């Protein structure tokens, strides 16, 4: 079953044609990785799925994006509701200047959850899912800024999980982290796919190889090749993919 499906998506930043007719489908409870050199449009494409591009002036999107078979660019879709359904983890850890607890509870609170016990349960559950509970359970009231970079990023994952989205978008979630933290995040992604559809943008091809089920290679705003990760890395069909994964450019 497809969780996300796009049909001929074009995106323009003013006059710049950033995404050129991308059609692809991402399966439920799978990890899909987007790879490609900088500026190839993979992050832009990812940000279409929770309409983060709405924040940028002069962006125009054509084509159809379906998430769980709903057209997310439909006028009747409230963008806030969409984002509750499609969580996102950013490149750099970006906790709020609040306590650890409040960071995770934020999504629930802005969605109007008042029930204290429910919030506490959900915070604990999310922190456990993000493999952070054991490290922070005694200092939930402390500022999130006191955590290390890797812990902060797992906190941001917990924060995204707390509102129980069905899709989790990750925009280079480990690029600002050290190898040990990266390994932890990757392990986490592997565990999370049981319950979530995960789309991850990465610069790191080894990472894509380790965590993803399918991989899409983007180049200059085009989807060049999309296949099972193993297939893409061992026998790419396109010469550009071949060049990129063997390190000839990028």
């Amino acid at each position: 079953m497809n969780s996300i499906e796009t049909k001929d998506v074009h995106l323009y930043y003013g006059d710049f044609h950033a995404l050129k007719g991308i059609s692809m489908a991402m399966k439920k409870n799978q990890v899909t990785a987007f790879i490609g050199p900088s500026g190839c449009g993979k992050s832009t494409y990812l940000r279409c799925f929770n309409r983060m591009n709405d924040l940028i002036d002069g962006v125009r999107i054509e084509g159809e994006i379906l998430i769980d078979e709903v057209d997310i660019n439909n006028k009747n879709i409230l963008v806030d509701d969409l984002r509750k359904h499609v969580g996102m983890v950013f490149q750099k850890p970006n906790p709020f200047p609040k306590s650890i607890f409040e960071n995770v509870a934020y999504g629930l609170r802005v969605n109007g959850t008042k029930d204290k016990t429910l919030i506490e349960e959900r915070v604990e559950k999310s922190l456990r899912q993000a493999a952070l509970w054991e490290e922070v359970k005694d200092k939930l009231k402390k500022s999130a800024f006191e955590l290390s970079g890797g812990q902060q990023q797992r906190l941001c994952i917990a924060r995204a999980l707390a509102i129980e989205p069905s899709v989790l978008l990750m925009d280079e979630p480990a690029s600002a982290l050290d190898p040990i933290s990266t390994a932890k995040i990757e392990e986490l992604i592997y565990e999370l796919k049981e319950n979530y559809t995960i789309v991850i943008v990465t610069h790191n091809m080894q990472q894509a190889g380790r965590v993803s089920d399918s991989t899409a290679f983007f180049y200059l705003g085009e989807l060049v090749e999309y296949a099972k990760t193993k297939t893409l890395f061992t026998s790419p069909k396109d010469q550009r993919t071949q060049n990129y994964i063997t390190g000839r450019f990028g």
Partner: protein
Amino acid sequence: MKRYFHNFGERVIEGVLTISGTVTSLTVLLIVFFLFKEGLGIFNQSPVAEGSAIVVNNQNPVKELSAKELKEIFDQNITNWKQVGGQDAPIKLFRIDDITDYYTEEQIGKDFEYLPQRLSEVVAKEPTIVAFFPEQYLAKDFQGHRINLENISVSEFLGGTEWYPTIQPAVQMGVLPLILGTLWVSLGAILIALPLGLATSIYLAEIADKRVRNLLKPVIELLAGIPSVVYGFFGLVVIVPLIQDLFGLPVGETALAGSIILGIMALPTIISVSEDAMRTTPRAMKEASLALGATKWQTIYKVVVPYSMSGISTAAILGIGRAIGETMAVLMVTGNASVIPHTFLAPVRTIPATIAAELGEAPQGGMHYQALFALGCILFLMTLIINLSVDFVSAKRKANR
């Protein structure tokens, strides 16, 4: 050779920069020193109006009075010597004009040549008298003793509720109404300016599109460039009558008028400082909030405002600082009555307005003059505290990043 000149030039520039820094610092120190030297002089002076003498009968055990007691005596609020530590006897007041009740013009003399002697006789004759007359009529062999007035004490100066710096026989230098008036008007100003300024800066930082922002920001900053006397004039012509009509007051020159004018004057500072603070909120943090399904408004009040809280506090404190020191506009619209404020709809008098209004008529080196400098010291300390708290808040802000 070229190199030599190059080095020489460098050194000259360095020297000029060092000298400018030193001169500036010294000037500041000099001003502060001058202010305090003049201001603290007030505490070494007796509050008797200059060139005057206050005398009592030799039998009277009272040797010293405070300025306040003396004023109460001459206002006939204190009528018995018992109340000021003397014997149980009613106080008899004597001013120089009263001499005609005792002696004829001939006895005093055509050119008042016998006046000192006559005064001496009156005081000797009346055991319960207190006499107040110019020092020049104090005879050498005067029958009676002069009353010493206690020097003005710090607590009397700061805690006194009456500001009559030129009244006779004893000046009243209580600055409490002026301090409270200043704070009162500033408080009102900040209550008006902070919500308005905050709303405007949120609008500019988060909601307005670029074109509107580029148009509005310079206009708001233009407000800061309008001379304060123009604000005062505007207040006098527009706001004062408006308040008068709106609240049905006998006069519209009130603390409220001052607060409104000062609030408008503090707006540009508050808006630009807090808007800058809000714009430093990392985009990533706002995106994180939006990505969690928060609306724009939720993001503003749950993320942007808390993140820029110290910047907003700095803006508020700077705004208060602007309001406290402002002179001209306040002088023009607040009515300048030196009473302790208890409502926004009554006239008040602020420290800067007092200094500006009275310094011209205070003889240099006199008590009144020194009292005004002491007021300047108080104002200086107030603004110093404000500046220190700005430093404190912004240091905290840096530490939080």
